[in-house]
């Protein structure tokens, strides 16, 4: 009984962690290339959640197909906000980009509220469960976890095997060096931001596949916070570090939730949040550069 609980927990924790990791890669990518901290991160996740909801409830389109749709919308939003706002602020003091991305977040929240209203929503995607032998997992969670890993691997291949990916990597390492190699540094900035936003909006789909309830315009705040902790865990500037940071965070969150639920008289949800952040605080005290040293 205990072993099964543990195994089930690890598996669900890994799936959740993969989704969290995927949901943080965009934040790290944008920070790594542009040194811009996207405080509006969670609002873009929220946009992805609403895209899923609108496609599923409105048109009956599967959340799996909502992933590429959300990615495309994210790319477009990213390019739009890069050229209208971010580009002018790259050389400005950090506070300017913090305020700007914070405002973009509020703008997105209010626009979505105007269109969809502010009540909590959910959707009911019936895809059944799968028996993994040691535990039974809802298929939607399996899809979300596996989808996140696939996207992370695709991103890795894109970065390391394509010409555009190599340009972006070179800009991360030294933008002046990239320039003398003939890289269009301005375009690399714009597309990195767009790619980061695209990944983030797409992660909103994956998160609702894992947790298909509680979709509302202000759901992003909690995810922004988690993403920051995860990003710092994995080393702020590295999307892969972020992915592994997410795995660790998912395991801790999922594990502690189950443990607390066993204790009588304890409200597991609040305590889980508390414990996850406590553990992370301790890790950061011991290894301030992040668990993975920001490689």
């Amino acid at each position: 009984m205990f072993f099964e609980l543990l195994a089930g927990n690890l598996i669900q924790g890994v799936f959740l962690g993969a989704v969290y990791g995927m949901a943080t890669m965009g934040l790290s990518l944008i920070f790594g290339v542009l040194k811009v901290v996207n405080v509006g991160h969670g609002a873009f996740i929220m946009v992805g959640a609403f895209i899923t909801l609108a496609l599923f409830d409105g048109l009956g389109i599967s959340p799996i197909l909502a992933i590429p749709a959300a990615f495309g919308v994210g790319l477009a939003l990213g390019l739009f906000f890069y050229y209208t706002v971010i580009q002018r602020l790259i050389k400005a003091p950090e506070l300017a980009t913090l305020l700007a991305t914070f405002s973009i977040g509020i703008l997105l929240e209010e626009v979505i509220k105007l269109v969809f209203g502010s009540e909590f929503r959910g959707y009911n995607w019936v895809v059944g469960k799968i028996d993994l032998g040691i535990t039974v997992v809802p298929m939607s969670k399996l899809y979300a976890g596996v989808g996140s890993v696939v996207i992370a691997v695709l991103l890795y291949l894109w970065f390391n095997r394509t010409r555009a990916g190599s340009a972006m990597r070179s800009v991360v390492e030294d933008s002046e060096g990239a320039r003398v190699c003939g890289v269009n540094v301005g375009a690399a900035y714009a597309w990195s931001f767009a790619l980061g936003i695209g990944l983030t909006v797409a992660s909103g789909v994956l998160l609702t596949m894992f947790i298909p309830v509680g979709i509302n315009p202000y759901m992003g705040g909690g995810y922004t916070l988690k993403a920051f902790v995860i990003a710092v865990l994995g080393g702020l500037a590295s999307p892969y570090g972020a992915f592994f940071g997410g795995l660790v965070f998912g395991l801790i969150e999922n594990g502690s939730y189950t443990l607390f639920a066993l204790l009588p008289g304890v409200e597991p949800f609040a305590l889980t949040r508390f414990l996850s952040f406590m553990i992370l605080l301790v890790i950061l005290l011991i290894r301030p550069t992040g668990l993975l040293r920001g490689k």
Partner: protein
Amino acid sequence: MLDVKDLESGYGPMQVLWKPSLTVKKGNITSLLGPNGVGKSTLLETVFGSVPPWGGQVLYNGVDVTRVPTHKKVDMGLALVPEGKHLFPSMTVYENLAMGAYPKKAMPHREKNMQLVYALFPRLKERSEQAAGSLSGGEQQMVTISRALMTQPQLIMLDEPSQGLAPLLVREVFETIVKMKTDIGLTVLLIEQNADASLNSADYVYIMHEGTIKAEGTPEEIKGSSEIREAYLGI
């Protein structure tokens, strides 16, 4: 091959270039000499385009490229070895060189150019799998120069390539610059504070002071003029 006419630029409100003009002839090593802080690097960066020009003109093979973006200039065969190296520290030497072949026209010549720079700097071949950030200062300078050569340039502009190097390495760098001209057929624009070494390898010399060109001539003319030497070079 390169004509700079009355170029003006600076940083924020501060003007640094006060209309210097110079010409780089095809197949020559042209050297720009002058003490620290007179605007030599700013001149190269403005010609390249990473510092935006305020006024004046840059002609490359007779074409006005004053406001052509940097990546297009690299495609046109203009290479810059910037001050301060600007390598990709966590990439290997090989990956740094491969990044130099990023321009589409350089891609097909990648392996050939790789052999060429390994012949110029055999040490880089031994170090090819090492992270660039872990190399010594001299080796890093070799990578920076090699990476620029990988872009398949016609004109290479070097910003104080001998800065901070031990005397033996300084000689190696200058020998390499001469080889670029004689063996590869490149045109070179070389910035230096090291007056002796550049006077010995250059075909023509400009002397810069306070953001403009104060004197020019063949190395013999510069060496022969005690006025110029005393006023601007301190030798």
